[in-house]
Structure formats: structure tokens, C-alpha cells
């Protein structure tokens, strides 16, 4: 056990992963420079430049060659510098990575991990603050996970790498250095497909993931101080969704607040709301609330705080569910 921040925990996970000779890492500036967020710092020196590969600026090429490698028996991890730069590779992901198992009826598969630093909050330039995970959760054949702590970042990465199917791996940019926690040495996994209740409560269920966990927990504390007992679920995996855990909680509390940074329309919250009302309509004591980013391009530094769901907004939404 050591106390690490999320970037360090992810580096540790890669180090463990590279013990498997099938594992290779591809990305822009991940080798000598150690990656924009230093997640892969030192790995090329330690594991060699044909295991930790600096590529040209060519996202479709990176994902497409990694896919070929996966088919040929390697286990590639791809780093895209920011989620906002993955769109040029979207065709490779949707048309090939997500589909080769079905297309070849299991004869060929593409077990690979695509790492996407995502989310706002560091005052970055345009395209550097996106949360468009919904464009992956809608695509058949992909699993989608989101880290929220150093511990689950490492465990989910190692689980993703072992998964026989391709995994989109989201890393909240603003938590890389600002969250620390105890991280076990060596190999362990955080299972894909399982959400966790990170705080127990009885009055309302707050459901969040990734970067929004922090604000959501803060909201839960604030609520507690006014006598509202909030349960907090960290989804960890978006596909496959742990609907069982969600429904169990909401059936008990009768109220739900769904929190994400992505735009509201068509975000992950829409899917969860649709499932809850389908399975637990008669338990609902109030409409399900969505606290999300607005249906906008994420504003730049000066105004991004107007965009990211605030503790205040989450708290107010929870209170609304209690008022109706």
C-alpha cells in the first residue's frame, strides 16, 4: 500500500500490465515525454520503445493498428491525449473495434483498451474538456468504464486489459493529481460491470461517476447537515450498467438524482432515468432529477465553472426530489 494520486496509480497499473509480454502501449508523446499527464512516465525507458510506442499524430492510425495488433494476439493499450481528439478514430472504433467479434462470429476479437482523459475543470483550450462518453455507450460491442479514485483507476485498467472485449477507459482529467488514495501493490482488479455504493443513505440516491463523484459526495455531506440522508453510487462502469444495484437503491429511497458532466440530452443519465422509470415507477416518490452539463460546447477557462455541475446544483436537485 502506498498513497498515490490517480496519475501515479495508472502508471503503476501500466507497469504491472507490461509484465505480460503481449501488452503494448501506443500513443502520442507517451514515451520519451511520458504522456501529457505523465501517466506513462518512465515506462518506455523501462520496457523499451517497441512496447511503449511513440506514434505519429494520427488517432485513426493508432486505434487501427492497435486493432490489428489485438487481432494478431497482442493486448494493446491506446492513449488518446484528450477525449476531444478521439473523433478522428471514431470510425475505427465503431466500424471495426466494436464489431470484429460479431463480424467474425468469435473467430477474431479485439481485446484492447482505449484510454481517454476526459472532462473539464483545468481551464484548458477548446476540445480539451469533453465528456462525450455517450457516443460510446450507445455503440454495441464496447464496454465503457470510468475511474474515480486512484484505487479503482488501477483496478479497472487491469480488469479492462484482461477483458476479452474492447474497453473504452475514461480518466477524469481534473482528478489526475487532485485525488490521492491508498493503492495496493501488484496485480488486482476492480470488476467491470459492478457499481459501488460509496455512501449509504435512505432518502435519496445520488448516482454519479468519474469526475463528478467528488461534487456528489460533497453534496451528500451538505445534505446530511440539513438532515437528508443521501445514498451515493459510483457507477464505475457505464456499459454494462449495474442496473441491479441502481434499482435496488432507488426502490428503497424512492428518489434519484443522476449526475454527469456530459450534456444532458442523450447523456448517460437519460438511459438510467429510462431504466428506473421502467423498473421502479411505482416506487418513485418524485421525478428523477438530472444534474448535468448543459447542451453546449464546454466553455473555456473563464466560464467553465458555469458549466460543470456544482455541489449547489446537486444539492438543490436532491432537495427538489424531497419536496414533491
Amino acid at each position, binding site marked *: 500500500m502506498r498513497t498515490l494520486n490517480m496519475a501515479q496509480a495508472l502508471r503503476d497499473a501500466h507497469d504491472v500490465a507490461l509484465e505480460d509480454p503481449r501488452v503494448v502501449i501506443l500513443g502520442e508523446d507517451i514515451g520519451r515525454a511520458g504522456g501529457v499527464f505523465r501517466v506513462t512516465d518512465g515506462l518506455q525507458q523501462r520496457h523499451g520503445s*517497441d512496447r511503449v510506442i511513440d506514434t505519429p499524430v494520427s488517432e485513426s492510425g493508432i486505434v487501427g493498428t492497435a*486493432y*490489428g*495488433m489485438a487481432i*494478431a494476439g497482442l493486448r494493446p493499450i491506446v492513449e488518446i491525449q484528450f477525449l476531444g481528439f478521439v473523433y478522428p478514430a471514431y470510425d475505427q472504433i465503431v466500424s*471495426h473495434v466494436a464489431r470484429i467479434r460479431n463480424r467474425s462470429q*468469435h473467430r477474431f476479437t479485439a481485446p484492447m483498451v482505449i484510454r481517454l482523459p476526459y472532462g473539464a475543470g483545468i481551464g484548458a483550450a477548446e476540445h480539451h474538456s469533453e465528456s462525450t462518453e455517450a457516443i460510446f455507450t450507445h455503440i454495441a460491442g464496447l464496454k465503457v468504464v470510468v475511474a474515480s479514485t486512484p484505487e479503482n483507476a488501477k483496478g479497472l485498467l487491469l480488469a479492462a486489459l484482461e477483458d*476479452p472485449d474492447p474497453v473504452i477507459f475514461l480518466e477524469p482529467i481534473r482528478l489526475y493529481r487532485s485525488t490521492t488514495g491508498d493503492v495496493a501493490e501488484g496485480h488486482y482488479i476492480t470488476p467491470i460491470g459492478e457499481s459501488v455504493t460509496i455512501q449509504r443513505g435512505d432518502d435519496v440516491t445520488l448516482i454519479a461517476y468519474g469526475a463528478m463523484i467528488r461534487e456528489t459526495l460533497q453534496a451528500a455531506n451538505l445534505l446530511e447537515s440539513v438532515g437528508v440522508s443521501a445514498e451515493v453510487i459510483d457507477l464505475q462502469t457505464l456499459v454494462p450498467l449495474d442496473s*441491479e444495484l441502481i434499482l435496488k437503491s432507488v426502490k428503497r429511497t424512492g428518489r434519484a438524482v443522476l449526475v454527469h458532466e456530459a450534456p444532458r440530452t442523450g447523456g448517460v443519465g437519460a438511459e438510467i432515468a429510462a431504466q428506473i422509470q421502467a423498473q421502479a415507477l411505482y416506487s418513485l416518490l418524485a421525478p428523477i432529477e438530472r444534474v448535468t452539463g448543459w447542451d453546449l460546447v464546454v466553455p473555456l477557462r473563464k466560464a467553465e465553472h458555469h458549466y460543470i455541475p456544482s455541489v449547489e446544483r446537486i444539492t438543490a436537485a436532491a432537495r427538489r426530489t424531497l419536496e414533491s
Partner: protein
Amino acid sequence: MLAEPTRILDADGSPVSEVEHELDTVRYLYRSMVTARIFDRKASALQRQGRLATYAPFEGQEASQIGTAASLKEEDWLVASYRDAAAMNLHGYPWELLLAGRMGDERGGHTPEGINVLPPSITVGGHMIHAAGIAWAQKIKKNNAIAVTIFGDGATSEGDFHEAMNFAGVFELPMIFVCQNNGWAISTPRERQTASETIAQKAHAYGFTGVLVDGNDVLAVDQVIRHSIDRARQGKGPTLVEALTYRIRGHTTADDHSRYREKTHIESWRRNDPLNRVQKFLKAHDAWSAQWQSEIEQSASSQIEHAVTRAENLAPFDVGEIFSGSFAELTPTLLEQRQEAEGYDS
């Protein structure tokens, strides 16, 4: 700068440069082309009878495809697209599966174990990168295998062609890019696809060699490919081969090509038939007889009839099976959806 394409036999089957091939090899290549053409005609016929969905015929391109695949070793990989049944089959992909795919059956995509051929790419442009990744994996694993990708002139306009070529150059990948320049991308003539004089010359932009070859001359294609394979296996990196050929039929069985091209042009390419010249060459070397011709035709026909029967007799792809390819293990959501789907299946 524009080199003459490499050519060994002219359209009349007369050698224009030294023939290095053994007669037996020539007979093998010829026979493979005959078989491919019989398949192509059969598939088109099945389509007209409604027994096959849209089909993309390759008539006229047999030499390019057979020449591309003839000298690959079992461990080498072939990554091809929708029009490349001849090349895929020669490298081990069964006719039966090629037919099943075009009948609209997912099981057509299940390459047999041990055969290193990906199911055909239906989107244009995306698959060349996959061959680069596969070739790269061979290099990383220190295998001796190489990868070949085959695609059309239209495919070179997609960004993914560029990225694949660039990776191949930078990482000196053991692979071959084979462009079947058949003059057309659906209705778009080669000259409107790109302003470069040849496609072969594009290799220069990536720091490796491009070679122009007469794509209707199977001996020339095979020779150029062999040479490229040797280079790739020796660690000398990738090659781009442009095989100049012609699509004799419509883009697919759904295409009316009279809308955009002249009959006379097609006729002139018919006279340039890739089978014809080899037959003439074999005749001139007493290595062809009408009886042999009818033997190989019959053998091909019965092989293909057999494939048709097997493809048509595949059990129905029932509702449960459409779920089976999604993940290694169905997710809870998919299990529920499958149950729901099965409830409506009657």
C-alpha cells in the same frame, strides 16, 4: 517519372520479358483464375435468381487477385475487401463462407481456424490500417510472417489509407499494399479520384517504394509480389503495388454502369483478358489442352456447386444467435433483450 508497368506477357500471351515461372506454376495460376471466374459468374447468377444479396463481381481482375495471393505462406495475413473473393479464397477463405456472407449470414465471417484472412471489409479505406497493425505485431513478436492488404483505387482517397501508409513507412512494417486500380470507384473514374499520375508514386510520400504492374498479367503481378514479400521478410519494409486492371462488370449487381461508361471501353479491356493471355502462353508451350480446360472447369464448378449447397443449407440464423456475437459473455442487458426477443419469435 512514370515508369512503364512491369509486364511479362503481353495481351496475346507473348513474353515481353523473361518468364521466370515454371510451367507448372503458370498452370496453377491459370487454374486458380479459371476457378475464380467460375465462382464470380456463379455468384452473379445466384444474385439474379435472388439467392444472393448484392454481389461485387471481380471479372477482369483475376490476375491482380490471384497474383497477390499466390506466393503467400500460410502464416502470412491477407486483409481484403468486398471485391476480393479470388485473393481471399486462394489464401484459404472457403468459397462457401464468401457465399454465406453475401447471402446475409453472419457465419460467413467466421474464417476457419488457422487461416489468416480477415472477413472482407465492407467500408472503403478502413482495413489497410488493420494489416499495418497485424504486420507490426509480427515484427514485435519477431515472427517471420508478413501482411498483405488489397484495396481499390477509390480507397486511396480515404484518410485511413494515408495513416496506414505513414505508419508502414515510419515503423518499417513487413507488409504490402496492393492497389487494384480497376479504373473506377463506382461511377468515379480514376482521374477524378486523385490528380497524381499514378497511385504507385504515392509511396514516395511515405518514404518507400511504389511499383506499377500490369494487373492483367498474373505472372507479372506474382513476380512483383514475390519480390515485395522477400523485401518485407528481410526487414526492408513495405511496398505499394499498383496493379493496373479493369472492372469488366458493374460495381455491384445493383449498379447500372451504362450510366457512366462507354461500352467500347469495356470491349477494349475484354480483349485484354487476364485468362486469355495465359491460355495462349500455355498453348504455345504445349501446356494446355481442351481436355485439361474442361477438367479444371468441371472440377471448379463442382467445388463451387458444393459450396453453394453448403452455404444455402446453413441452419437458419435464429433470434438467439443474433445476440451471440456481441461479447465473449452476454451482459445482463443483452440477456434480458435476448429473452425479450425470443418471446416474439414464432
